[in-house]
């Protein structure tokens, strides 16, 4: 009996101390998860996804992660400058140019803003990108999508993906530290 109890105790402790891995996937066909492609920075790595050419027209990649404790608790994502600052555009290129004023958006029941950019990549190529920042209390969730297509197309594909059921579920869980 003592051995059984010990095993039970170990099992309980193990279950409570190890974070349960929750795979993030989309219920939209054509997307697959890839390894986070950026070096470690001040925030824990997020999730990265790639959409196949045949589905998205061009290859589009999307990177999404929570930034806990990085938001103005009262005003949230207040303006376009905030989107420039907090989204992970700089991981892809330090040189990006907004194409137009951003717009208010709501993702996974979190309010924020979205803005489109022209990215000047290190190899000289130009990519279209969309930066998204939404917040809950003092926490942010940021997403960036980029590809060789047009900005409206990247935006459409990114929003469709982020709005899928599994992604909404994962984003909500990630913001709660789960």
């Amino acid at each position: 009996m003592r051995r059984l109890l010990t095993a039970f105790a170990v099992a309980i402790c193990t279950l409570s101390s190890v974070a349960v891995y929750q795979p993030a996937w989309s219920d939209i066909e054509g997307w697959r998860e890839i390894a986070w492609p950026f070096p470690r920075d001040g925030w824990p790595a997020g999730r990265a996804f790639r959409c196949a050419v045949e589905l998205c027209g061009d290859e589009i990649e999307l990177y999404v992660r929570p930034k806990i404790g990085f938001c103005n608790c009262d005003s949230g994502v207040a303006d376009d400058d905030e989107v420039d600052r907090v989204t992970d555009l700089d991981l892809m290129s330090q040189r990006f140019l907004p194409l137009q004023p951003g717009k208010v958006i709501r993702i996974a029941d979190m309010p924020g803003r979205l803005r489109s950019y022209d990215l000047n990549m290190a190899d000289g190529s130009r990519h279209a990108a969309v930066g998204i920042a939404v917040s809950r209390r003092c926490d942010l969730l940021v997403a960036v999508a980029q590809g060789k297509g047009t900005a409206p197309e990247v935006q459409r594909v990114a929003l469709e993906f982020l709005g899928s059921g599994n992604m909404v579920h994962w984003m909500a869980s990630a913001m709660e530290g789960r």
Partner: protein
Amino acid sequence: MNRYGKPATYLSIFFISCSSSAYAQQQVIGAPPEASNMKLVGANDLQARSAYQPTIHHQGDRWIAYIGHHGGTDDIPAPVNPQTGKAEPNGTSIVDVTDPAQPKYLRHIPGQEGKYEAGGAQMVRVCDGKALPKGDRNAVYMLRTFGGEAHEIWNVADPANPVLITRIGGLKDTHKSWWECETGIAFLVSGAPDWRTRRMTQVYDLSDPSHPVKIRDFGLAGQEPGSTGAVPTEVHGPISTGPQGNRVYFGYGTNKGGFLQIVDREKLINGAKEPSADNLRFPEISRLAMSAFNGAHTTFPMKQMPIAEFANDKDGKTRDIVMIVDESILNECSEPRQMVWFADVTVENRPMMISSFTVPEASGSFCERGGRFGSHSSNESMAPVFYKKMAFIAFFNAGVRALDIRDPYHPREVGYFIPSITAATDKRCVTVDGKDRCKVAIQTNNVETDERGYIYIVDRANTGLHILELTGGARAVAGLP
């Protein structure tokens, strides 16, 4: 005991020991403070307002503490001021600490409405009118922030009856400014509406506080209006060594991506003022990048420190040191450790980190106590009693830590004080499985010292002001009797 009794006992012991270990170190009301080589002299509850920066000013034959506050809480957005009987948004507390054992609360000046960081009046600096080049010799001027939207200057010659002199408004965020009393030059951490960052620096001539003169806007290239691309980390606060030292040490970042920027003060004040990328780079001497894990809340310079170990070296006997203090942001150790760093900036274009200090977490199970654990700020007084000998670090739920920094290559802790919590101490929560889990713990946010050797600590979680003094071996480090 039946055959199920013994297993049930084992299970009970297991669950009790599992759960009690998490709460063993939590503070309880009525328990004594935890201390080593520091003792409590006096206290004031500051009307249970969340406190930020204290500045202690020797004013005539009195000693006055000016204490900035954050905004109110969700539960109490505007605490009642017992002196007026009215609910007042948190602002600035003015306390007579001439007798540190019996501090007298003189006045509360309300601040901007708003909760937590969104309201209050966090920052305070004080200059005598007779020290300022064009000040009223009979005045004592208090510079403070007004929430995020303005800077204000009050005449506090009669600290119980302050009078508003000037307001510099229209800003989107303000924070920890620096004011040179001998010149009146002020480095105001502001958020100019057209800049791409929440916080940058506006340099003002406040030598005549009733007529502020703006000198220039300053920040990092990429933050200025009209720039594009990546936006550098925002400023947190500068400390100037004045015209003699001719340096301003800027800290950027709070708990992430921080760096120390060393700036030529004369070039900053007299250089081209148009905020172009080239003009912003012109006064910069160098930067010391920190890990992406840490930010720079306070950058405290200590020039020409004699280093005993180097006393017989033909060169480099003294070193210019900057103490960099990170700010912990998240509760219950949910981020990389924020701590204290010492940089040798003697060779200014090659600054180098030489040592660090943190409180051992295991010494108090601080990750389990609740609230923030990690550093926030240091004392900023350069009075001889402690300067270049001791530093005091506000460490949130680990209270204040007293460091012997005479050898900044090997700083060592010589004392600490963790105040008791009270009924006013506010809870701090983390989200666990989608629900708030809250604990109550002291949250020592800021610390300042006076020329007499008293140490003033204030609490972010509404516990108030505690006035301390050194005891035992720590007094010897400072050369106190």
